[in-house]
């Protein structure tokens, strides 16, 4: 018997991910909201939705803060209470958790959780600088450490401790690009070869261009209800049965171990216990592959393999679409794209499609239980959610 449903997803929406020229974040969010409304004809959004929680990382991109109210207005939900959650790249993982709290507390029957980021209109050095704001300023940014740099520090340590190879990292990229090629909403819909990945230019050694996720524009949203009324809105709800979140030091250098994310392990433990499921029960997972090494560390932190075996898991194809535990069927942050604030609920969108049999060419057979793993910064925040087909 699995854990009891805390909240139920009755609909979900995702904008196209990519370079969305000429659009503001709020306009992209409206695309995601529209899809969620269309998927759920029994819902009357203006009447039924009682709150909006939206993840958004940075004001710098558009010189625009106060995302809660702005997004609510553009989603046609004017006058609902709306707040932005910020936890770097885990901003909408945190929004989803806030939405679960709102439902599980009994205060709201129906709420929307989502996320958005508009990034591609800024130059790469500017985006590099804005993303670095999620790391420690006085000791990391001030000494020239970038975001790819932080994950490269983890990769070097992982390679040294466990013998993980650059080719194993590249296998993650090849797999996720293959999955992205099957996702019409992905930013990059083309396959890459192992040679291409290995010979791409170095960003922060040992990480190369194809080890890094994309700078992408996009938005995502979910509509959640109390489990006991979910069937009023859809015949195929997806229940959230576990939620976990933890924090860690903002500085990577202060942590005991650079080859694992303590916050992710703690969040996973909370979610697994609440859901009463084990890693081997998970049929499909979306994990935070902001860099290829992050996906390998995620396998280990989530218990899909033992510490140090993540590289081999990718190399042996165990996490590919037809593998033992398919990971990042959407293409992940690597190929679908990483509009930072939108990522957490975009992961949940993919799991919603998988558990309701709507994932088309990338459908995992008979997927019943799914998991999302969303990491903020270099791991100072992590959120994990577990889902079951309703």
């Amino acid at each position, binding site marked *: 018997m699995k854990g009891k449903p805390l909240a139920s997803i009755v609909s979900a929406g995702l904008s196209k991910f990519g370079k969305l020229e000429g659009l503001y974040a709020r306009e992209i969010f409206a695309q995601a909201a529209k899809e969620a409304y269309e998927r759920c004809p029994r819902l009357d959004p203006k009447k039924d939705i009682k709150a909006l929680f939206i993840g958004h990382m940075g004001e710098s991109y558009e010189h625009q803060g106060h995302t809660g109210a702005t997004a609510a207005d553009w989603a046609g939900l004017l006058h609902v209470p709306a707040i932005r959650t910020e936890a770097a790249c885990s901003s909408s993982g945190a929004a989803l958790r806030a939405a679960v709290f709102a439902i599980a507390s009994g205060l709201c029957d129906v709420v929307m959780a989502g996320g958005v980021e508009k990034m591609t209109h800024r130059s790469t050095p500017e985006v590099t600088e804005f993303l670095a704001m999620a790391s420690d300023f006085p000791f990391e940014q001030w000494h020239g450490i970038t975001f790819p740099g932080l994950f490269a*520090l983890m990769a070097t340590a992982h390679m040294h401790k466990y013998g993980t190879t650059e080719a194993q990292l590249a296998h993650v990229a090849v797999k996720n690009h293959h999955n992205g090629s099957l996702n019409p909403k992905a930013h990059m819909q083309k396959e890459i070869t192992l040679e291409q990945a290995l010979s791409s230019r170095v*960003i922060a050694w040992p990480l190369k261009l194809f080890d890094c996720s994309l700078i992408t524009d996009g938005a995502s949203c979910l509509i959640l209800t109390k489990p006991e009324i979910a069937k009023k809105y859809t015949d195929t709800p997806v229940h959230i049965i576990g939620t976990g979140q933890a924090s860690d030091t903002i*500085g990577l250098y202060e942590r005991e171990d650079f080859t694992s994310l303590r916050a992710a392990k703690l969040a996973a433990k909370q979610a697994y216990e609440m859901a009463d499921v084990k890693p081997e029960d998970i049929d499909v997972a979306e994990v935070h592959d902001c860099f290829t090494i992050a996906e390998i560390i995620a396998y280990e932190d989530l218990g899909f393999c033992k510490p140090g075996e993540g590289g081999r898991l990718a190399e042996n194809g165990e996490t590919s679409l037809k593998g033992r535990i398919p990971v990042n069927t959407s293409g992940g942050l690597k190929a679908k794209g990483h509009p930072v604030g939108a990522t957490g609920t975009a992961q949940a969108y993919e799991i919603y499609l998988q558990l309701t049999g709507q994932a088309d060419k990338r459908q995992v057979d008979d997927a019943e239980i799914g998991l999302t793993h969303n990491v903020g910064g270099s791991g100072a925040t992590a959120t994990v959610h577990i889902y079951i087909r309703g």
Partner: protein
Amino acid sequence: MAEQTQNFTIEQFYKYVGQKKLMGGKCLNCGKVHLPPRPLCDKCLSTKFEWIELPQTGTLLTYTVIHVAPTQFQHLAPYAVGIVQLENGVRIPGMIKNTPLDNIRIGMKLKVEFEETPTAQQQQWPQWPRYYFVPY
């Protein structure tokens, strides 16, 4: 100096760096050495500290070579950064200089050096003087 020793802050840490000193805050209750210094011990919640001089040598725990840099560091790229464990166990990140990038290895011995006397501009937030590491 008496007044400065009251301030177990990041600002005060960098003021010491400007004087070519690497200083940490030692908790007088539980003994934990903090880098950066903190006003509240994360281990025992004490607020009583003393400044101690940190060892200026240590071992490289991990590193990377940054090729794509933020705007203000672009003129230095490619450059190496790493996390160093000082002789007393305290960990600190920084740039690794004065060595061919190919020679950098986990486990190598490094020592702290300081940027030359900072300009007036480099003595207030956020323009702190920097420390860095070199092989020895």
